[in-house]
């Protein structure tokens, strides 16, 4: 199995709203704590290490390309 990156959410707008709602009234530190718990719960649900590794790589690559662009623009 590989990481699904094509549209797969039942209700994208509902999920996004629920995600933002979950963080309502939290400090940055509390939001970090929530995100960490959420990642761990979802990771366990997925289970498969190759899929998780692909997700980590996909997430990291967009962060890296963004920061690389930031550096070249300054």
């Amino acid at each position, binding site marked *: 199995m590989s990481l699904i990156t094509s549209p797969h959410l039942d209700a994208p707008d509902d999920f996004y709203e629920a995600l933002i709602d979950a963080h309502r009234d939290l400090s940055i530190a509390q939001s970090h704590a929530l995100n960490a*718990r959420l990642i*761990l*719960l979802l990771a366990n649900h997925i289970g498969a290490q190759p899929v998780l590794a692909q997700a980590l790589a996909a997430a990291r690559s967009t962060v890296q390309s963004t920061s690389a662009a930031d550096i070249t623009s300054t």
Partner: protein
Amino acid sequence: MADVDFQRLRFDYARHADQDAPAPAQHPVVVVGAGPVGLALAIDLAQRKVPVVLLDNDNTLSTGSRAICFAKRTLEIFDRLGCGEPMAAKGVSWNVGKVFFGDAQIYAFDLLAESGHERPAFINLQQYYVEGYLAQRAAQLPLIDLRWSNKVVAIAQRDADALLSIETPDGRYELVASHVVACDGSRSTLRELVGQKPQGRIFRDRFLIADVKMSAVDQPAERWFWFDPRFHPNQSVLLHMQPDNVWRIDFQLGWDADPEVEKRPENIIPRVKDLLAHSVMKDAQFELEWASVYTFACQRMACFRHGRVLFAGDAAHGVSPFGARGANSGVQDADNLAWKLALVLQGRAPDALLATYCSEREFAADENIRHSTRATDFITPKSDISRVFRDAVLDLAREHAFARTLVNSGRLSVPAILHDSPLNTPDSAPFEGRIVPGSAAVDAPVTLPDGSEGWLLRALGDGFTAIVFDDDTPLAAAAIDGVPLDVLSVRSCGQAQDGVHLIDREGVVAERYDLLPGSVVLLRPDQHVCARWRRPSVEAVRHALERALALH
């Protein structure tokens, strides 16, 4: 038999005839360092008929408890060396662990050790007991020439041997050795003398070990681990039981702690009292037995051999203490090296066999370093975000079983599986189960020829063993001159009798090794699986033996 007070034992220096020899005496093997690794190696070599000179720079065994967790595989090696029994008898076994975060227990676990093994998953036993029992065993072996207060101060590497300069209470002398094995610990003199430095990560953290002797505490042996307890905020604490009512307490102190200040009893005792107030041993009376402040590194030498010198144990590699991989992996180094060195010295195997000591144990060291680095990174998060995830895992662990699998306060030390060893013969038929070529043999209950109950590993000799299941294949003809091969006939039922050595009375041998009638498993002298077949020819077994001797 009353316990010997191993910590107080002093071993007298005795002048050796070599010190008066007109020319340096020649020896096949000199082992430097009579700690657990050097003693185990010397015993193993002597059992293989190799005379060995064992040098130690002082005249005592381990000071303080130091290594306290000895794993099943290590005990099985000690059994083979003839001294596992007193260790297992003296050691403390535990199964229940409790994990605390802040003030509250977040969960408890039971190791539920798998049955069908003679030895438990591990025991807690002070290093001085282990060294003491090893030293008692070594004293029974006339081929071991143990010289206390003999310190190596120089080495000259030559083509076929090495010249050692040794300092003693009455002057220097020299020895020539075909092979030198450095088992002289994390601050190895030999490593320095050959100009090598280990490479890896040094952790900027300090830990305080306090061994305290409790009086009148009747407490089950449990392992308690606190993350960030109120009595020691932002740090971790470990409480572990040893024999003689001694408890090991490990306090993480952080990098800024002053080791000299922290080592003072007046600073340790309040810490211990605070901890006990938070445990079931509230108000218990105790005495401080030993204390030490330490730092650690996860690192190893790039190569475990330099010329005529082989390195084993802490001299070759270092790990964090979490997971008990220091002394255990060192004893496994000795287990791997002894038979190879013996066969090379006896001219039965080429020098290439010694190269596999390095490749196999460097691989094992990397695995140990990886595990202990992971535990260390969990216990002492190195960044803010690492801390956020660590605390998230601990919080989730209260309610969610999955998160408990992520809590890492040290993973149980198990032997490395030498998957890629050049000594393995790849499978030619499918096998199920956990055991693969490169695995250490796994124990199982059996019935012996006299009808008594025994254990598979105890039936293995010092040489190669071919386990033949439910069949009469005559494999003795596969043996190579001068290299012992035991053919061990195991039957699924019936009586042990002539030609049948063991009965697999509970079917555990067949299950663990996935054996069918005619299956054969070939074990190396260090009890690692190196080949297996469904029904091999004599030629196939001989070929696998040659491969395991690095003959091709």
